[in-house]
């Protein structure tokens, strides 16, 4: 029996630049198996980019990302394909296929990767939809769904192949309180019930801290803080506390760099 | 509902392909007259002309105005510097060989050139009654060139 590595995802010394900007500068992140890890930070800190790097959609400039002890970016296409089947990525917009019904959307990965008989496929899809509470919407088109419902369908689709790793890209952004509650419940329960490992990328402090086991706080391309949610909330470091408590001015200034006010007024 | 949609899709695509095929066949037969190629068997004869005028390959060959073949090749003979025209004639109608002659005529006034074969008489040689593969038509008349005609006319008028 082989010993499974402790960390499902192991990111070491990651460097990534995009258009002359340092998105990641020597970032180190580990995601232990079975836990929910949150990656938080202000907008534009590259959180979504991180998920794409883990999934192999983008190539890092240097550093290594290992998933299940395999270096993602040195895999050949078929192996990468196999690895991706064990990952699920929930996009911020849901990214459902607009020309397929809800049912067909969830059935898509199953149809493409397995040879299941139609009846079994049908049952599996309904089970996934039941898990997110949308079995009744199976014949609707994505255009007819609300944002929250679309995300839940996308969640069902991302889970269709029973992945080991689930990644959520800003799942709470722009959601009404009820949908937010639903999603929170889904993420927490599915992680526990299906023995998943989850990475949640978000900047909703309260919601994320309520479900995360461990939090990484990122800004300007590097990690400015990490730890259990309650530890970060109690931290007195100016950068961390400004973000965690939502203060308007602090380590990150309110004013965008500009000329002195009086000078600008007198010039115009 | 989905089944119906897919059936509709497949049927309409099938109809499109069928229409394409019909158009192709139409263009082949009605437009380019490929039906003539149905006459699979034909034989080649040749003739020498001192001037072919505007005769082109694929120009029709007629006997009494009825198309019996096509010009397949036009070459210049190195020694005599005459034009040798190779013709492909259909097998269905035998043409008497002896004294057969070929003339180059013009369709209408401004039309293109074609070859008219005036069949010969009943032959004295029973073995070689009709034109066959490889024969050479010896009696030929060159094409009528408009400039020569006008030149002759002017010359005659001056006289």
């Amino acid at each position, binding site marked *: 029996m082989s010993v499974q590595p402790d960390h499902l995802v192991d990111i070491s010394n990651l460097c990534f630049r995009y258009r002359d900007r340092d998105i990641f500068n020597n970032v180190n992140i580990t995601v232990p198996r079975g836990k929910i890890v949150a990656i938080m930070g202000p907008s534009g800190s590259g959180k979504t980019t991180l998920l794409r790097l883990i999934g192999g959609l983008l190539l890092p400039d240097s550093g290594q990302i290992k998933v299940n002890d395999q270096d993602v970016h040195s895999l050949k296409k078929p192996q990468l394909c196999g690895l*991706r089947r064990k990952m699920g990525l929930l996009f911020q917009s849901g990214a459902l296929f607009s020309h397929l019904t809800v049912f067909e959307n969830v059935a898509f*990965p199953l149809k493409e990767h397995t040879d299941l008989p139609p009846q079994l496929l049908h049952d599996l899809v309904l089970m996934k939809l039941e898990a997110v509470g949308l079995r009744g919407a199976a014949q609707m088109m994505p255009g007819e769904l609300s944002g929250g419902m679309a995300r839940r369908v996308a969640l069902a689709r991302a889970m269709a192949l029973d992945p080991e790793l689930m990644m959520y890209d800003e799942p709470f952004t722009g959601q009404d309180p009820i949908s937010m509650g639903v999603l929170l419940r889904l993420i927490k329960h599915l992680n526990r019930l299906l023995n998943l490992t989850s990475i949640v990328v978000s900047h909703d402090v309260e919601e994320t801290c309520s479900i995360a086991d461990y939090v990484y706080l990122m800004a300007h391309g590097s990690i400015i803080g990490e730890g259990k949610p309650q530890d970060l909330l109690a931290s007195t470091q100016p950068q961390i506390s400004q973000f965690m408590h939502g203060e308007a001015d602090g380590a990150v200034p309110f004013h965008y760099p500009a000329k002195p006010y009086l000078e600008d007024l007198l010039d115009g | 509902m989905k089944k119906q949609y897919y059936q509709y*899709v497949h049927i309409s*695509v099938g109809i499109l392909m069928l229409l394409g095929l019909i158009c192709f066949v139409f263009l082949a037969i009605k437009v380019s007259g490929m039906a003539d190629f149905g006459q699979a068997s034909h034989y080649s004869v040749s003739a020498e002309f001192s001037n072919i005028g505007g005769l082109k390959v694929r120009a029709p060959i007629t006997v009494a105005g009825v198309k019996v073949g096509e010009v397949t090749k036009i070459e210049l003979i190195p020694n005599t510097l005459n034009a040798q025209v190779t013709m492909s004639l259909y097998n269905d109608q035998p043409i008497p060989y002896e004294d057969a002659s070929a003339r180059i005529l013009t369709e209408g006034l401004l039309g293109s050139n074609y070859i008219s074969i005036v069949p010969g008489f009943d032959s004295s040689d029973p073995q070689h009654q009709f034109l066959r593969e490889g024969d050479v038509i010896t009696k030929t008349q060159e094409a009528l060139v408009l400039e020569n005609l006008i030149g002759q006319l002017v010359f005659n008028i001056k006289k």
Partner: protein
Amino acid sequence: MVNFFERLGSKTIGLLHASGQSGLFLLRILWQKPDFVRIWPVLSEQLYFVGVLSFLIVVVAGLFIGMVVGLQGYHTLQKFGAISQVGQLLALSITRELGPVLTALLFAGRAGSALTAEIGLMKATEQLASMDMMGVDPMRRIIYPRFWAGMIALPVLGLIFSMVAIYGGYWVTVQWLGVDPGSFWSNMQSAVDFRTDVLSGVIKSIVFAFLVIWVALYQGFECNPTAEGISQATTRTVVYGSLAVLGFDFLLTAMMIGGW
């Protein structure tokens, strides 16, 4: 002054980059292993969108073009007393030039822009990325069937255009203007050669299909994933596709008139 050269240089590099990228894109499409059983449902659906839905515009355009060429041809040939040649004029201009070229231009405008917009939208809403993350190659699933659908549909549409146009011309010249139908068809048949005229038109159609589909799919795939980016990409498909068709039309005609 230096600024001008700088911009020229960067534009040139940009052009080279784009050509290289589009060439690689094309190779990725052509290099796929054909899998006819699995690809058939998607292919037939795409044939419907690309072919069947363009059918109406091709037929209507063909009809009008044929009628106009017939009318203009009659009018001009009348001065030479050569109206019996109008069938020949019509058939040759349609099968050799107007058929393939106009069908390709209409196709670029209707089907090409639709494809670019569809793929661009899929890119902007991250559908392509999510497909990638599910381990399904979007090139194989989305691009490849559309490529072959276009390659099949355009030549078929070109043939339909030619036939409809010739019949359009026939109605105008024979039924309306009184040209003798016998001489119409016989003159046409003697002047039109299957190989050099009809077949060369089909070959042109195939080349044009290749160009238009390539441009349409590439522009959609590599567009900026914003609303503005999609609209720019769609415009570019129509413009570049049309210019490519016209340019290659000249090249092909020059090659064919010479050799064939």
